């Protein structure tokens, strides 16, 4: 990792360090990351800096990425699974500007993937790092608002309250009604918030070859799941964990095994389902998979399918 201070010009505009954060701060964050990796699922307090982007808009993830990115890295930023969501665009621009970062939309090319609310559909590889933006790192917060209490509960692995909550869900609704940020047990020790990814994505965390880092900027916590670590979604023997499923495939690429977003197409109840992972969908379309509504969408210029094909064939 090289440092290059941007040299101030003649009428000195304030100069920022490589990747915005100063090196002392990066060191502090790396120390927190090392501790987090050493104790999977444990929330490490860190001196979260005030960032030029708003709290709640990814400042935890941005600080982690800034602390680990180097000139050789390729950065992918997604929000809701898509590379072109406005805040993902904004964060990608931040690193292009401050760290001269190489960026890509291709999941397999990226060395660092900063994400909000999704894990890519394509399996991750060893050497890749997932950086999750976390709004609320404490999985017990909705059950116990006081930090002083929840820290004790983690220390004593006292997770009965969470089990009771899941049980009450089942008693009342016949199933657990948490659909995202579904609590997981990491390495058989800490209950952890996986960030608000849909529970559909939880199984991808289990024994993942990638390193998974979690940053909560406003709440000033960092935690991690090292590669090949068990991540079990909490459940009961007679009510096993299950993920979302859809009755129809992606309208654009025909995928039946990806997480789908619902898109309202008119005001007469018309709707279609499309992959939330935009890169996955484009790759599949480039490979010749065609969904039932692709022709309609292309005709309306809602999808520039040719561009998607070009993009993938170039990469």
């Amino acid at each position: 990792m090289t440092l290059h201070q941007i040299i101030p010009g003649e009428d000195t505009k304030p100069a920022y360090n490589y990747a915005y954060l100063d090196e002392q701060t990066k060191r502090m964050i790396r120390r927190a990351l090392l501790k987090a990796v050493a104790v999977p699922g444990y929330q490490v307090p860190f001196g979260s800096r005030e960032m030029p982007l708003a709290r709640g808009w990814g400042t935890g993830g941005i600080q982690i990425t800034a602390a680990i990115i180097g000139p050789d890295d390729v950065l992918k930023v997604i929000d809701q699974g898509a590379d072109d969501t406005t805040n993902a665009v904004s964060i990608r621009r931040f690193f292009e500007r401050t760290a001269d970062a190489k960026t890509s939309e291709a999941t397999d090319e990226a060395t660092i993937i900063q994400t909000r609310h999704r894990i890519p559909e394509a399996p991750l590889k060893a050497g890749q790092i997932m950086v999750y933006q976390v709004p609320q790192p404490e999985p017990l917060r909705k059950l116990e608002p006081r930090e002083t209490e929840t820290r004790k509960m983690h220390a004593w692995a006292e997770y009965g309250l969470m089990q009771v909550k899941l049980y009450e869900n089942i008693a009342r609704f016949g199933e657990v009604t948490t659909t995202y940020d579904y609590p997981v047990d990491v390495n058989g020790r800490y209950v952890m918030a996986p960030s608000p990814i849909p529970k559909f994505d939880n199984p991808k965390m289990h024994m993942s070859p990638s390193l998974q880092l979690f940053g909560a900027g406003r709440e000033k916590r960092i935690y991690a799941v090292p590669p090949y670590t068990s991540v079990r979604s909490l459940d009961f023997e007679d009510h096993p964990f299950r993920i979302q499923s859809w009755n129809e495939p992606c309208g654009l690429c025909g995928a039946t095994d990806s997480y789908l977003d619902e898109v309202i197409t008119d005001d007469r109840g018309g709707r279609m389902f499309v992959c939330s992972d935009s890169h996955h969908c484009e790759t599949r379309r480039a490979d010749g998979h065609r969904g039932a509504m692709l022709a309609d969408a292309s005709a309306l210029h809602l999808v520039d399918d040719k561009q998607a094909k070009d993009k993938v064939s170039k990469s």
Partner: protein
Amino acid sequence: MYVAVKGGEAAILATHDLIAEARRGNEAVPELAVAQIREQMGLACARIMNEGSLYDPDLAALALKQAQGDAIEAAFLMRAYRTTLPRFGSSEPVDTAQMAIRRRVSATYKDLPGGQVLGPTYDYTHRLFDFALMDGASPVAVPAAAADLLDATMPRVPDILGAEGLMEAEEPPEGDPRPFDLTREPVSFPADRDVRLQAMARGDEGFMLGLGYSVQRGYGNSHPFVGEVRVGEVSVEFVPEELGFAVDLGEITLTECQMVNQFNGTKDVPPQFTRGYGLAFGHAERKAMSMSLVDRALKAREFGEAAEYPAQQDEFVLYHSDNVEAAGFVEHLKLPHYVDFQGELELIRRIRREREQRLAGEIQETQVQETQDTLPEAAE
């Protein structure tokens, strides 16, 4: 559909142009100079310096200009800049007893050494529009009282009470360690007083005001008197290591409020008055007073009082008083959440479907039962 998110980059750049246009307003009207804001919107600048945690009236004025007068957005600009500044040391403690007083009032004594100094205050203005200001260029009356009419010494009221042993003594913690810096280290709870005061000093004025008010109205056990509010300039001194003696860095304007509160005493401590303390940059009386009310409320734990109300709970006050963090998190709800919402949609549709099937089954069952029940009657 996808068109809503495609082209995000161009759209983002366009918003920057639009905000610049909105900020400028009608170009027939002369543009505001930063110096005008600094000189003529001083109270707004003080608020930005407090909530932005940076004493720099010029930058506060620039922040207000850039943020179109949005106080929280301006404080955010200040903080995002402040966080990049190097820390080369801590100043010596400022001595507010040596303040060059502009205003000083006490509610606990009719008269006291140094006297009551009203200074610049809206307190006794009638809130009637001065339409002369509408036309600009209002003549400024030169106040008769000059600073040299004031007494040289203005002892702080709590010090007067302290000399009699009636005021809770405030000693620095053992070894007088450097205060905690909550912008560099994570806060843990229960939080010590240096952390609490620091958080409140940068806390939202409106939030602190509401909390302070709640204490007065009964959501907290407080019977406060304004021992003193003072506004004026103090000098900031710094000891560079290579020199070994203090050098004067300049003056800052501060507002200090010390509230005098009752305390019944305990078995070991005789009844005495207790202190609520507020300190703010610039002329910011409302902020300093609110802060001093909440400071006293947060001392509940130290005095063995029950901490039943929000203003007495440090986690509640410290986590929620930071308006830049709060605004960020509240406003992040504008970001797309359609992945999570899709999860909720899927769940609620399924639960409703299962419920309808169950109810339909029950109705059928009861109908079958009713038919069975009624049949014998019909036979009779």
